[in-house]
């Protein structure tokens, strides 16, 4: 029907299948869709709030949408529950809260592939719009790990080697089981891993907890954009852990 349907988080597969069957288009509101200052969202949300949900509100304010499905259950977060209330009061379109409890595993070939980490994340976040599993990829031997949600600022992903495996909620995204806590809590203790936390996200607690358990971990908290200190921490952590990074840094003297 060519309607534009916004989604927040990962609505249940039944919802995605219906949108696809209706031939409507999906707009992922978790991702920046517009070149606008995120502070514009402060009309509806506090400035000190999860940057992903501030992005959702910013998108909702400025995109022409026909409906929004917002996941508010254990597969997303309590903050999304409150944002669903705000969106309902803010917009004149139907806002449908969902609670995705899907537990059928679709596999995680992209998370374990040798694709550049940025491409992995792009493929996984795009995959949310489909009810099909990821295309097959050969697994690679991991040399580093990235645990967490997709960051608001994807630029940090280019600091990692292609042999980085993805864990945490992003792995749950690819598996299409966003509420599967056992999968989200899984990490590989044999590889240096960055436990990424989006500032003010409830999952920061799990990120830090798992980082404390992991023998070679960096806990990293980032807000809207990753500053130079966050980037330097990742670079130093990988270098000092003996991880061979790519030559993308140009003349950078990797230790």
């Amino acid at each position: 029907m060519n309607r534009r349907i916004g989604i927040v988080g990962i609505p249940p597969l039944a919802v995605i299948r219906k949108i696809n069957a209706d031939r409507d288009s999906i707009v992922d509101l978790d991702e920046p869709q517009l070149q606008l200052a995120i502070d514009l969202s402060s009309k509806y949300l506090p400035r000190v709030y999860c940057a992903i949900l501030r992005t959702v509100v910013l998108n909702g304010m400025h995109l022409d949408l026909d409906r929004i499905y917002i996941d508010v259950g254990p597969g997303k977060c309590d903050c999304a529950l409150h944002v669903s209330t705000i969106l309902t009061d803010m917009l004149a379109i139907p806002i449908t809260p969902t609670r995705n409890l899907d537990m059928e595993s679709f596999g995680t070939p992209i998370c374990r592939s040798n694709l550049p980490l940025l491409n992995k994340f792009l493929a996984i976040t795009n995959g949310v719009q489909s009810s099909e599993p990821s295309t097959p990829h050969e697994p690679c031997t991991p040399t580093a790990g990235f645990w967490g949600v997709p960051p608001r600022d994807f630029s940090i992903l280019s600091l990692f080697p292609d042999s980085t495996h993805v864990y945490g909620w992003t792995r749950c995204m690819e598996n299409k089981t966003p509420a599967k806590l056992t999968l989200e809590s899984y990490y590989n203790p044999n590889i240096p891993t960055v436990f990424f936390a989006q500032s003010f996200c409830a999952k920061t607690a799990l990120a830090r907890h798992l980082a404390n358990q992991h023998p070679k971990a960096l806990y990293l908290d980032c807000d809207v954009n990753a500053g130079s200190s966050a980037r330097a921490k990742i670079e130093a952590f990988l270098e000092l852990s003996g991880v061979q990074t790519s030559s993308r840094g140009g003349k950078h003297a990797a230790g």
Partner: protein
Amino acid sequence: MLLADFGTSYCKLLDTATSAKPRILPTRDLGKNFIADLATGHNAKRRSKRSMNELTALARGGRRLINKPDFVLLDCGSRDIKFIRYEDFEVADMGWNAECGASMGFTIELLSKYYDIDYSAVPIPESGFSITCGVLGMSHIFDAVVSGSSETEAVAKFVRGIARNAYRFAGTPEKIYLSGGLCDNPLFTGSFPCDIVPLGRFVLLEGLKEYLATNQRP
């Protein structure tokens, strides 16, 4: 080979082809076209042929100078604070705070010039201000002076607060190896509630030397 640590306020330069000691130059006096062979610091990527991340340089410098299995090394710069914690000869934790630890060193130097204070002559106060940032912390000084404190007393409490904030940032260890220009400030070093081992201003240059030594081995 010309090595450089391009700090915000001061640059530390070393020519490995001579036996001369490192020299310190105010950053504002650095020639426009100055280029180092290998460098670290804020301007390293722009002003050198090869650059090294500051945390990496700090970790390498600490390993070279301290050479112990377990230690915490804290670098207090003009603009930010960084720490590296080694455990069993491996980096176990690190941090770089450019926001909440902002402008500590710069503010401390600025205050000494503005109020004409010699930090070596100032006794360490028994209490200090609760400070997380050099810039925001200055309002405490103004409030204290308005309330009747001397300028020197107020600045001393400010410096103590800065030191305590850096101590918490480093994870409240029993002993800290300290890097940076504040090593020469007895009020600052004496305000930490733990053992302090000042290593001076050239720890990051040592990190660059360690990198050269490692990468020139056959």
